[in-house]
């Protein structure tokens, strides 16, 4: 025997446990002999009723809280577990990683019970819900990398400068709980504007993770608003109820995130048009006023031109009249002068029998102007009488 192959009990069990890690399984059975140890861990046996075979199980305190399934003796469950030999007593037991209820009926009862409890706590009331921001930028997205959901979301999300922090997570079955919780922890302090959780529709059974109490509480307490797009058949998931807003499909989630931006874009377009039309009408009004003023002024110019034309006609008349008056007056003067001259002509006296005597061409006024035998001329009205002074 080769001494190198001989190992201690402890080392053997370590080796065995390491190998057993690859033997994880989902096992269905009935809970029996459930015990809560003072350290907070749960111990029970999973019983196969067909032949009474059983296996010991342990649920660590931290896990039990997460599962959200209230165990009781006689309850049929599916456990996801890993076989492990407890070194202190050499007994094989299953370390339970997940517990699921079996059958729609049991799930339904658990769902209703939890719903009522959380409702009473006020976890679903509208008043505690945060508003989904109108213009979100940093968006955390939790869903499965594979499947139609993420595809629908990315197809429909608009190009509005979104910064999307995607965390892949299982969304189906009880296993999803740990994934979802870890994804939420990852995104918790990322200063998100909104967190989006999505999955497609399915049976109540496949939704178990989204009815998990721990997850519901984390969603309710999440620092950023949580928007869920979790499809459902009959009952809305409790996570959806606790989230700040729930819509039915990933497309609806995308549309909601787009909506503020789309509205803003519409509003901007409307205002832009308004600015242009206001500006246009302002220009038009100003132009119109200027035109009106111009037309009014033109009427003024027209009137002024008419006045000038009238004035020229008037002045022409005045000028003609002025000159006519002047020449008429001049003629009058001439006529008057003629008359005056006529009246004062001495020859005019001859007709009355007076005569004018001239001697040597001079008018005789006194006797001394002539002497005897001087020739004299007597002017009478119709001629001259030649005579001699005696």
């Amino acid at each position, binding site marked *: 025997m080769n001494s190198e192959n001989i190992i201690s009990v402890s080392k053997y069990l370590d080796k065995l446990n390491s190998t057993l890690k690859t033997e994880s399984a989902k096992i269905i059975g009935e809970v029996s002999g459930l015990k809560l140890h003072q350290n907070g861990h749960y111990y029970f046996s999973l019983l196969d009723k067909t032949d009474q075979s059983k296996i010991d199980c342990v649920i660590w305190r931290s896990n039990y809280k997460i599962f959200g399934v209230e165990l009781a003796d006689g309850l049929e469950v599916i456990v996801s577990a890993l076989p492990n030999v407890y070194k202190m007593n050499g007994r094989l037991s299953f370390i339970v990683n997940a517990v699921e209820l079996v059958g729609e009926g049991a799930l339904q009862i658990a769902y209703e019970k939890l719903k009522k409890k959380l409702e009473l706590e006020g976890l679903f009331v509208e008043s505690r819900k945060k508003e989904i921001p109108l213009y979100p930028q940093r968006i955390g997205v939790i869903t499965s990398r594979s499947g139609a959901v993420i595809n629908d979301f990315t197809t429909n999300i608009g190009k509005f400068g979104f910064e999307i922090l995607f965390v892949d997570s299982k969304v189906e079955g009880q296993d999803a709980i740990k994934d979802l919780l870890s994804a939420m922890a990852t995104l918790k302090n990322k200063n998100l504007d909104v967190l989006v959780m999505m999955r497609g529709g399915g049976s109540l059974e496949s939704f178990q993770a989204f009815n998990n109490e721990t997850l519901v509480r984390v969603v309710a307490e999440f620092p950023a608003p949580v928007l869920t797009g979790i499809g459902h058949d009959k009952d809305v998931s409790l996570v959806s109820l606790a989230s700040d807003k729930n819509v039915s499909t990933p497309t609806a989630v995308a549309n909601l995130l787009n909506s503020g931006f789309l509205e803003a874009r519409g509003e901007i377009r409307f205002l832009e048009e308004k600015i242009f039309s206001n500006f246009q009408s302002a220009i038009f009004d100003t132009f119109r006023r200027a035109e009106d003023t111009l037309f009014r002024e*033109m009427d003024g110019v027209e009137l002024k031109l008419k006045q000038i034309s009238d004035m020229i006609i008037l002045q022409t008349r005045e000028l003609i009249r002025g000159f006519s008056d002047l020449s008429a007056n001049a003629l009058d003067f001439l006529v008057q002068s003629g008359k005056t001259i006529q009246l004062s002509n001495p020859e005019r006296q001859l007709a009355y029998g007076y005569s004018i005597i001239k001697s040597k061409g001079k008018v005789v006024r006194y006797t001394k102007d002539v002497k005897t035998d001087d020739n004299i001329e007597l002017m009478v009205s119709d001629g001259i009488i030649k005579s001699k002074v005696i």
Partner: protein
Amino acid sequence: MKKQNEKTDGSNLNETLKKLNQIVSWFESQSELDVEKGLEYVKEGAKLIKSSRQRLGEIENEFKEIKKEISRN
């Protein structure tokens, strides 16, 4: 007298009218019978009337053109 092509008789309508007005005033205030001077003034007045009518006609035409131009728009 200065010659300007664009304006009839070189003087603007305003000045022409002012001169014409002075002539008419001279006739109105005339107490002497200076027919010789009167004739001179009538001749000048007639010239001024002719030139101001011509200028006014030009202005009216130009104005009509402008008005037509504006109304068309």
